[in-house]
Each structure stands twice: as structure tokens, then as C-alpha cells.
């Protein structure tokens, strides 16, 4: 009954390959996100979707393409992987109202490009 689940947990791939990371939330939240955590642990938003519509795209290269088939899913597809894409990618979700809770994060996908 994991609230925000992402797969795979680990992903090792060669430069130039295309890969996808999947995310699902069972919280009924309206908005989903992708965050990137670099090697120095710095976290930065990449995308946000509200009810399947793209809301935020933080100057992420076009090689990254999010897709939201429904409100509960937000997948991240990456084309032509580069060494610099190595990072931990976190999916998250939130509700629109000013609830006492914050964003709920998945456990992360560690992507290593070799």
C-alpha cells in the first residue's frame, strides 16, 4: 500500500540508450512531480503535472519527456542518455488544497549512466 511508488529502484545503462521510469500514486492527489537529486544531494524540480496537464517544465532538456496517462501516473522517458543524467530521480505528489501535509515522495530511482 505504498503511497507513491516508482520503478525501477536502480537503473544502470549505457550512454545513448533510452530509458523510462514509472511512477504511480494511490493518494488521490491532483498534482504529480519529478525531482532530480544530483551527486551533491541538491534537489531540483523538473516537471509538474496537474490532472494530466503539464504545469511546470524547469528548463529541462528535450531529451526528457514526461507522460501522464491519468491523474495517478506520471512516467519519465529519457532519450539519448548522457553521463550527466546520472542522479536520483524522485517522483512526488501533492493535493491542491492547503492541507497540513506536504508533498509525498517516492523512494527514488538511482540512474547510473556508464
Amino acid at each position: 500500500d505504498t503511497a507513491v511508488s516508482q520503478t525501477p529502484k536502480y537503473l544502470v545503462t549505457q550512454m545513448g540508450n533510452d530509458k523510462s521510469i514509472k511512477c504511480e500514486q494511490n493518494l488521490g492527489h491532483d498534482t504529480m512531480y519529478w525531482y532530480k537529486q544530483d551527486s551533491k544531494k541538491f534537489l531540483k524540480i523538473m516537471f509538474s503535472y496537474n490532472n494530466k496537464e503539464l504545469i511546470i517544465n524547469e528548463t529541462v532538456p528535450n531529451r526528457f519527456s514526461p507522460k501522464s496517462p491519468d491523474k495517478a501516473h506520471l512516467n519519465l522517458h529519457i532519450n539519448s542518455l548522457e553521463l550527466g543524467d546520472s542522479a536520483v530521480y524522485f517522483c512526488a505528489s501533492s493535493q491542491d488544497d492547503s492541507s497540513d501535509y506536504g508533498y509525498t515522495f517516492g523512494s527514488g530511482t538511482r540512474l547510473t549512466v556508464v
Partner: protein
Amino acid sequence: AQSVAQPEDQVNVAEGNPLTVKCTYSVSGNPYLFWYVQYPNRGLQFLLKYITGDNLVKGSYGFEAEFNKSQTSFHLKKPSALVSDSALYFCAVEPRGYNKLIFGAGTRLAVHP
């Protein structure tokens, strides 16, 4: 530019002593303020959130945070630290009307027995 500063890379404290992890922010308006904790090879866990009202917010695992509007600070506190509190702590802000979190660089808390 909107930003969040955590001035200490690491905070060391003895078990049983009080702890403070500092956070200041530069965001216009009245943003929502958050603290998250990250244990090794884990995701981020929500600790607490400030929306409005009382300047002292109580959260999970005995943590609390003090909001100071004039200093634009939101420091995380705990009266008595545990070794199991050792982790990476992130302060974050959500500008009102924007569905996104802006994170600080993180502070590593080390609690020694």
C-alpha cells in the same frame, strides 16, 4: 531569485542535547515552509509544514520548527536528540500559487552517543 539557504553543511550534537538546524529563505509573499528528512538510500519523509498562525509548528518524531517572519527563517528544533535522528535534513518553500518546492542544499545531522 527565489532561494533557500541552509548555512550549515553539518550539525553535530550529542545524544540527549537539544538540536537546531537553520534555514532562511528569500521568497516573496507568504510561502508555505517545509522540513523533510532523508535517510541513506531512502526517499524524503515529511516532518512538518508551516501554513499560517502559530509561529511554532510541531511535527513528526518530536521535531518542531520556529517561524520568524522578520528574519525570514524557519529553524528546525528538537529538545533532545537521538542517535536515530542522524540523517540529511532539507528545508523547502512553496511560493503561494506555485505547485513546486524550492529546496535548500540540505544539512547533515550527526548525533553522537
